[in-house]
Every structure is written in C-alpha cells, then in structure tokens.
C-alpha cells in the first residue's frame, strides 16, 4: 500500500520535530523488498534501538534471535560489541551467519545491570558498527536511555530479549522505547529431495514498529553474508493483489 501524500508530508514534519540535534537518519535494508516495504525508511533505522526475542522455547535459549541479530550486524560496517550475561554463544555459528569472528568483541557482564551499562556505553561510542546485548528485563526508562544513546552516535542497537523461565517471557508485552520489535520463531526447515535437514526457516514477526504497521514474514535463515531469503514457494508465487501497481521487475 502506498502512503497518501498528505500522510507522508505529515510524517516528514513530525520526523523533523523529533529529530532535534540527531544525526541524519540512515537505514539498513534487509534486501528483501517484501520486508523493507513494511519498514518506514525502507529498512532498520541505524541509530535506533531494536528488540528481538525468540518465540516458544526460543524465548529461553535465544538461538534463532541471536542469528537474526548476527545477520543484521553482519551487514553493518565496523566492529560489533556483543554483551552477554553468561557466554553460551558458539562462535562458528555466528561466523556462519556472516559475522566474522574478528569483528565481534564480547563482554561477559555477569548481571543485568552491568549488561545495560555496557550496552549504553557501546551505543554512545560512534566508532562501532553495532551493539548487541542479551537482556531479560528492559524497562521503559532504560530503553529510552538506550534509544537516546543510539541516536546520539548513529550506531544500531539490538536488544536480544531472553528470559530464564517461559513465564517471564510475558514481559515482552510491556512497552519500550525501541523503534522496532521482532519475534523470531523456528519453522520446519526447507524440504530436501534427499533425507537431511535443509536451510533453516523462521517465522519473523514484526510485532511493533514505530511509524509503521506490524507484519509477519516467513523467511529462510541468514546465509553466509547475513542475508535472509524468501522461501522458494513464496518467491515464485503469482503477483497477488497486494503487489498491484508495482512494476514486474520490482
């Protein structure tokens, strides 16, 4: 759906008021037209905070969410700061998602409070490509601080929300100041003509998006450059009514 011109100009006006002394907005596209069209600016805002959580058991292990974040970080330039409470990431997998081991500096913070402090410290440093942090509780006040820190430096911040118990995951319903909120759940992998496990598939839900609408996508997991892909049966589909008006090449 194309936004109305009046709406677009209003949006621009609000953005200018909001901007203040913020740096020029830049966006990091996913490279999938279906996803980028749903995000204002055509991608994830750099200099903003984004939240990612896993669905189902992923809320506890955060395995798919970590790869989703690694894929985003892989497509930025510069070093990545990755803050965890206790380390359980397996570095070869992060490298397979396109984020080379040389680019990532890990901080093992030990508790929630220190993770938040390190996250904010990293976001204030404009020399980084991005900052990823694994946190459970994230209050409105804290997320606002993080968002402001990201705005001041233009560095993308990704909060991987991860909880100890499934019951704590209800916390994900609480509002925060993050620009977007994602939930990544695993789906059965792509069917292969031979026995074996195909490329992983995710159900990626855009639960909340500032100045945008929520949406969900079925995608194939990150490749070696950190790019998502559309599953073949969706990519080859006939142009539906919702893509009306777009050129055939788009």
């Amino acid at each position, binding site marked *: 759906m194309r936004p109305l011109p009046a709406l677009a100009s209003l949006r621009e006006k609000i953005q200018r008021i909001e901007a203040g002394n913020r740096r020029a907005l830049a966006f990091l596209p996913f490279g999938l037209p279906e996803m980028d069209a749903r995000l204002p600016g055509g991608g994830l805002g750099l200099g903003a905070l984004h939240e990612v959580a896993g669905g189902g058991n992923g809320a506890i292990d955060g*395995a798919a969410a970590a790869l*989703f974040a690694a894929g985003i970080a892989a497509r930025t330039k510069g070093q990545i700061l990755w803050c965890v409470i206790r380390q359980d990431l397996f*570095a070869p997998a992060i*490298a397979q998602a396109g984020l080379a*081991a040389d680019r990532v500096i890990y901080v093992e913070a030990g508790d929630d409070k220190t993770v938040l402090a390190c996250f904010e410290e990293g976001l204030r440093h404009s020399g980084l490509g991005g900052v990823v942090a694994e946190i459970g509780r994230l209050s409105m006040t804290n997320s606002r601080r993080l968002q402001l820190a990201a705005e001041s430096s233009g560095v993308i911040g990704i909060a991987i929300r991860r909880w100890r118990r499934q019951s704590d995951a209800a916390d994900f319903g609480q509002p925060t100041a993050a620009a977007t909120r994602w939930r990544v759940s695993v789906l059965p992998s792509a069917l292969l003509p031979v026995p074996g496990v195909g490329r992983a598939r995710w159900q990626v839900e855009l639960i909340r998006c500032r100045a945008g609408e929520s949406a969900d996508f079925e995608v194939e997991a990150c490749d070696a450059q950190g790019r998502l892909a559309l599953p073949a049966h969706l990519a080859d589909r006939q142009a539906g009514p919702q893509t009306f008006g777009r050129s055939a090449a788009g």
Partner: protein
Amino acid sequence: MPASKAQALVPDLIIRDAEPSEDADGLEKLALWALHRYSPIVAADPPDGIIIEASGAAHLHGGEVPMLNDIVDRLAAAGITARAAMADGWGAAHAFARYVNRPVLVIPPGKSSEIILRLPIEALRLPEDMVANLRRLGFERIGDLTDKPRAPLELRFGPQLHRRLDQAIGMQNEAIDPVRPPELIEARRMFAEPIGAAETLARYSGKLVDELCEMLEAKGLGARRLDLLFHRVDGGIQAIRIGTATPVRGRKRLTRLLCDKLETIDPGFGVEMMSLCATLAEPFETKQIRTSLLSDEPDIDVSALIDTLTNRVGEEKLYRFAPVASDVPERSVRRIAPTSPATGETWPDHWPRPSRLLTAPERIETVALLPDHPPVSFSWRGIRRRVKRADGPERVFGEWWKRDAELATVRDYFQVEDEAGERFWIYRAGDGEDKATGSHSWFLHGIFG
C-alpha cells in the same frame, strides 16, 4: 637448634649463612611484582610476607578466591611455596596466612574477629620472649587474652601487647605504607583542609591527571595503568586502579576513567592527600590522524571503549573468539584479547553449527537404531520430541595427543529437527559398535537457530 645438631640428624645437610638484607630485597621485589599485578596498595611484611590491600581490586581478578589462587599458583611457578589468606585487617590476615594450614583461605567480612580467637598467641606478631612469658602464665590462644582485664597485663608487658591484639581483632586500624618503585612517575597534592565531596574529589583528580600527563609527555611515555590513592585523615588509604589497553596520554580519557570509579571511594572524615601515579608506563607512539582525503573508511578506534569496559567488568571478561584447529567443538574456540590484531581465520564451513552451545553436554534418553542411525525420538529436560528430519553422522575423534584417555573415543554428531522445527545438535558417545570407543549414550550439545 644449633647447626652441629642439625648436621648430626641429617647427613649431607647443605648449610648457608642467613642473609637478612638479601631476603628483604627479594621481598621488596615480590611486593613490586604484586603492585604491578594485583593491587595499588602493597607492602612488604618482613621477614616472610607481603600484605596486599584487596578491596576494590579482587573483582578484576574474578573474585577473592580466584585472586588468591592466582597469587599462590604464580608464586609456585616461580618456585616459591606460599599461603594466602584474606581477612578484615592486616593483623588478622597475617595470622590466618601463617597459623591456618591451608594454601588459600578467605574469611567472610566481619567474621575475622571471632575466628581469630581460636588461633595461638604466636599469631599476634609479638616478640618471641613476650610470647614465651605469656605461655608461662598459661595463655595459649588469643581468646584467652581478650577476656582478661587489660591494666595488669599492660603493666607487665607494655602497650605493644594490646596494640597487636586490637589490630588483630579489627579494633584498631593499621595503615599500610605502600611500596613505590624508585622510577615511578607520580603527582601528589596535599590539602590544608580535608576534602570529601564527590565533586571536589573529581576536580582534583582532573588536576592530578593534568600534572601527570605533563610528566609523561616530558618522558615520551603513555600510561598503561594508573593508581589514584586517597590518604584519609584517619590514616586509611583508599585506591582506584585503572588500566588501559594501549599507552594513553589523553587527559579527558584518563580523567573519565578515574571519575567513573570515584563512587567506590569512601572519604570517611576527609581526604588530606591525593596521589596519582603511573604504575605502568610505556613508550607513547604519536600517530598521524587519518584524513578523509586518503580513505573513505572512518577512523575506527575502539580502544577507548575497550578501556572503559575493561575497568568496569575486568580484563578476562572482554574478549574476541578465534578459531583453533580442533574438531572437538568445545576446543575449536579460544578467547583472545579484544585489541589483538585480526586473525583473518575462520572455522571450516562444511557443516552448520548451533548458535548456542551448552556448557556441558546434557544426557538425553533416546530411541535409536545402532550403529549409524539418528534417534527416532529423544527426551531432553523432561520433554519428549519426535525426530522428523536428521543429518549426520559427523564423526569426531578424540585427540589422543592431548590425553591418553581419548585414544579410542569417538563422538557421532547429528543435527536433528523435531516436528515443530526446533533443531538440536546431539551426539552419541562411541561409534555404535565398539564399546571401547564410548558408552553409546546420547547427549545434547547445542541448539540451532
């Protein structure tokens, strides 16, 4: 015991003259080593000890027990058998290190004054003849002294007895006079009136940094480690230690690192002197700033950020991963310092790897065909999952050159997917045929994203 008697008891005994002055020199050297390595406040405690003020320093070494272990291990590597104890005060720590037969001992805060009562009176750092006289009077343990009236004892033994007793049970403070290497670069400032407000401390920290940076500049050095000492009016010393990854002479950056830690300082009734010294200084290389005329890449210097984080969480907690040529998953990764140069290496990419690796593989119950089929179903943490698709086996052999026990061991890794699409990395210990290669039980090792 006379030397002749000892010689009679042990044949071929090697005898050397005691050299107390050389011993003292050696102890001083050890104290300097501890100063560089562990804490800003360290002093020799002759004839055979070193005293280290560990408050505010222990967390950088992973906690109190790991720090003491580290000290004892490093000394052992240098051929010195040492015992370490941590307690509330100098007197108590001195006693516990010498009179409790354990290599490493940490007394929880506030408990020293009770436990010390059980130690013999020799632990009080008193002259030998005084101890002998006390023993003659029937005093065996420190506890025997505390409930006796003080005046008669003091009349007989002088004020030293109760001073040592009070120091041991923490009733009296004992200032440590920290060792300082002779070539140390130091800036200090005395105050006519004691200061205590946080803003004032921060302001003077900034001034000291300015002075120190001038001295460093004159010598062409940059600071790798700074110690800021606060001498309080009551004789106590509080300290802040910061470290940097590369030599630094930037005033703003150093001031910020120091001021970040000011909240840990308790000025008490006031601070009468502050001294800032560069415990570790290295040659400072001036670098030309890259300009955008020459390259488009922005100058990315994250060392300032690394310093800030290191001083917050400790050196060990900040790292990068680098590959190791090993097929055993938990050995294929090593941690390197965040500032080390890029290795440019990566892991082999033949097989997908799980994004989360369990710290220890967890035992699972399976239904599986031997020898080379993946399980049909398995239960992990009380949940039963039916395996829908699987890939494998990927055989990993034990590394016999590391341990003899691994000579025959084998692990067969499978990637399995359950009905909901959750993917796990599981392995069977053993090749499924020969019991010598492993127990044939199944383990879950990682979770795929």
